[in-house]
């Protein structure tokens, strides 16, 4: 039977052993497998080599550690998302209209009005996105509402609408996918169990190759241990809880006052700018024209410092304090943004009233035109009026787009200028004035600046929120953002290496990267709300944009279903969108979510029980070990 077994074995593996008919086929298979694996490895390497800015980020990582590098990795990830959004808006919205739509000057909406023609090419006007920039594919108002354009019969309005919805859907998908991936990589989320062990075995960053960074890291590890030791000792004694609680309530009250104050300031400034706009912008100074944007940027700069000072009252653990700080700055930016939007809604309403007036005036003007020509000739020749002379309504959508673009441009400029002054100029002054100054500028005040990771990440997140909000009304926004992120990457990489010193801050905002992702998700949700509201409830302008003439923007979907799809499809869709069908479906989804939530809760509970069991087992073992050691001593 051993002989039989060995015979079977030889038959089965004759190719591998190198005898028999299967030999050549087996050798061929092995060779192909090796080549395939080599190809896969090379392809992986090629993909890695194609990743932009990898060496730059590696350099920053080795000088400043992984927390500063995490900002640049986040920036690069955002750049990727914005590239996709840019591809969508550029390829499916801007290019078709530019190539296949009616050219400039053929319609009133595509032409600069006669009154503005004189200075439409001025740099000041163009920088403000008026003039020729306004009447171009960059903004909503340029697009024609013709159902199909060109020989391809490209459905422009449908494409515009779907790209708007698609950018939001894509962003949601990408953010949630990244969050899920981060959550999977997370160790399991047990933060307090192994505090000292983790500090000992995972605090040294093996990527550090620079002596200065290494010294800083040693110092921060020492501080971290000392703090943990102090906490361990302090947790056994409790000090005056009442005083601490009172101080914390006071601090929160002060912060609320600040937030309310900043919200009111923004509202006041926006009202004032509306007044200025009514009086005509030319009669005011540069400050008065750009007041809103400058105030918002300045508040975003100085309030966080104020919050930092107030938080010293609270006496929290630094990680908790940092999270509170981030939460407060988040609330500040949110409050500001929402006040801005509410003010914008007021402007939209004003413009719509103006539109009604213009519509009225236009009928009168047209009637006047006909009367003139009838007087001259008996027949009525076609009236040839240059599009620049036709009165047109104020296009509120373009106005909204322009506001967002201006806000983003001014925000970008403010950031870059603060970078150059706050970091670069400061570094230059400290370096060169140090030779002739009484105290050591480098060690004491002001010294070199540190890279503010959380501030920069928040700025990035809010910038992206503004893009999501305004992209429907200004298709040029993703393109602008791609340019901004590209420049930011190079500028900040240079600034960090040139002007900053490695951080001494010991705690990161959170153990996992999901803290920033969660904020991004919240911003995504909050910034798509206003856009959706305006799409659903405000009728589009009557003479500009791809939805002009419709009563609501989403009517384009209805129109497409009626004209482009066969009749039965429309019926199926109307049945499917029946509330009687949608509501049970929603209910089912809610129930499924509830079920999944409760199963995950029960798994967590089981996990906790097992952990407790492990702890009791180890404790039991410890006790038995002590007893065993004691037995020889007893005997």
């Amino acid at each position, binding site marked *: 039977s051993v002989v039989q077994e060995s015979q079977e074995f030889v038959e089965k593996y004759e190719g591998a052993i190198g005898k028999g008919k299967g030999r050549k086929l087996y050798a061929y298979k092995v060779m192909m497998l090796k080549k395939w694996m080599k190809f896969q*490895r*090379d392809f*992986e*390497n090629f993909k890695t080599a194609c990743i932009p800015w990898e060496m730059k980020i*590696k350099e920053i*990582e*080795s000088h400043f550690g*992984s927390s500063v590098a995490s900002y640049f990795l986040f920036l690069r990830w955002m750049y990727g998302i914005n590239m996709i959004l840019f591809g969508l808006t550029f390829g499916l919205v801007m290019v078709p209209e530019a190539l296949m739509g009616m050219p400039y000057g053929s319609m009133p909406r595509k032409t600069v009005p006669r009154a503005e023609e004189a200075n439409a090419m001025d740099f000041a006007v163009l920088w403000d996105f008026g003039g020729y920039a306004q009447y171009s594919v960059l903004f909503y108002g340029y697009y024609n509402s013709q159902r199909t354009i060109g020989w391809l019969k490209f459905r422009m309005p449908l494409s515009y609408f779907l790209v708007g919805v698609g950018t939001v859907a894509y962003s949601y998908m990408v953010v949630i996918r990244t969050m899920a991936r981060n959550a999977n*990589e*997370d*160790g*399991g989320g*047990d933060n307090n*169990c*192994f*505090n*000292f*062990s*983790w*500090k*000992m*075995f*995972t*605090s*040294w*960053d*093996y*990527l*550090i*190759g*620079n*002596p200065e*960074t*290494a010294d800083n890291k*040693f110092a921060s*590890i*020492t501080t971290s*241990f*000392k703090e*943990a*030791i102090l906490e*361990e000792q302090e947790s056994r004694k409790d000090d005056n809880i009442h005083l601490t609680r009172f101080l914390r309530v006071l601090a929160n009250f002060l912060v609320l006052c600040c937030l309310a104050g900043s919200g009111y300031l923004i509202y006041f400034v926006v009202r004032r700018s509306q007044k200025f706009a009514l009086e005509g912008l030319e009669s005011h100074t540069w400050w008065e024209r750009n007041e809103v944007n400058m105030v918002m940027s300045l508040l975003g700069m100085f309030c966080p410092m104020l919050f930092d000072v107030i938080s010293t009252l609270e006496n929290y653990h630094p990680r908790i304090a940092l999270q509170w700080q981030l939460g407060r700055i988040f609330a500040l930016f949110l409050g500001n943004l929402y006040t801005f939007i509410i003010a914008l809604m007021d402007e939209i309403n004003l413009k719509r009233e103006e539109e009604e007036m213009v519509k009225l005036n236009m009928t009168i003007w047209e009637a006047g035109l006909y009367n003139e020509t009838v007087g001259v000739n008996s027949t009525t020749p076609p009236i040839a009026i240059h599009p620049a002379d036709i009165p047109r309504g104020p296009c509120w959508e373009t106005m909204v787009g322009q506001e967002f673009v201006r806000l983003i441009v001014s925000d970008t400029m403010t950031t870059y200028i603060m970078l150059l002054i706050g970091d670069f100029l400061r570094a230059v002054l400290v370096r060169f004035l140090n030779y002739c100054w009484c105290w050591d500028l480098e060690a004491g005040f002001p010294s070199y600046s540190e890279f503010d990771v959380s501030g920069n990440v928040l700025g990035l997140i809010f910038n992206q929120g503004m893009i999501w909000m305004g992209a429907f009304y200004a298709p040029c926004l993703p393109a602008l953002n791609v340019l901004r992120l590209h420049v930011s990457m190079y500028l900040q990489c240079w600034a960090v290496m040139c002007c900053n010193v490695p951080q001494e801050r010991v705690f990161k905002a959170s*153990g*996992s990267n999901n803290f920033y992702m969660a904020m991004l998700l919240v911003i995504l949700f909050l910034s798509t709300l206003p856009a959706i509201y305006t799409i659903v409830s405000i009728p589009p302008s009557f003479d500009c944009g791809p939805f002009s003439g419709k009563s609501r923007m989403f009517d384009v979907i209805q129109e497409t279903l009626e004209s482009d799809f066969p009749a039965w499809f429309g019926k199926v869709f109307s049945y499917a969108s029946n509330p009687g069908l949608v509501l049970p479906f929603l209910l089912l989804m809610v129930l499924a979510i509830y079920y999944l939530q409760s199963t995950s809760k029960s798994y967590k509970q089981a996990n906790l029980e097992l952990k407790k069991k*492990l702890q009791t*087992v*180890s*404790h*039991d*073992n*410890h*006790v*038995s*070990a002590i*007893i*065993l050691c004691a037995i020889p001593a007893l005997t």
Partner: protein
Amino acid sequence: MIKTFETPPPFASQWFDPLPPPALSSGTSCRLHGRFHELAPHLVPMDYTNEPDIRLPLTLIVTMPELKENPFRNRIVEVFSEDGQGNLSFNDFVDMFSALCETAPRELKAIYAFKIYDFNGDNFLCKEDLEKTLNRLTKGELTPEEVRLVCSKAIEEADLDGDSKLSFSDFENMISKAPDFLSTFHIRI
């Protein structure tokens, strides 16, 4: 319920043998060879087809920029050398960087981390090993009482089998839950 405590197994490579580190691409291998050659140009030949047995001493390896600031550089090199004294052949050199690279699996990194922090090589992280680790991390800035407190807290947290020292399974259980382990125990070359 008295358990008998057996002596720990000798340096048992059978249950402890790490998997071979992940294979690197030919591009990375060439770069690594370049770096190896740079360390001792007169010793390391450019041509490795005859597989010469050249070993570089520890003092030369730890001058590499990726390693020279690392407080555990001597231990890292000793762990990856065959003789345990820190003399690395090119194969050992490649093994070292591929175990520490980004794509190495967590289990592999845990194994090597355990070996690195085990200063006396007895397959357990005992109090002395932890004290040595801590002193290297803080450059001796902590007082002896503080050092003792930290080491006893660490053992208390991670020790599951109650022998007052960390075996590999204790260490792995603790390190697998650490959120920062993969990102900090990583050298890029």
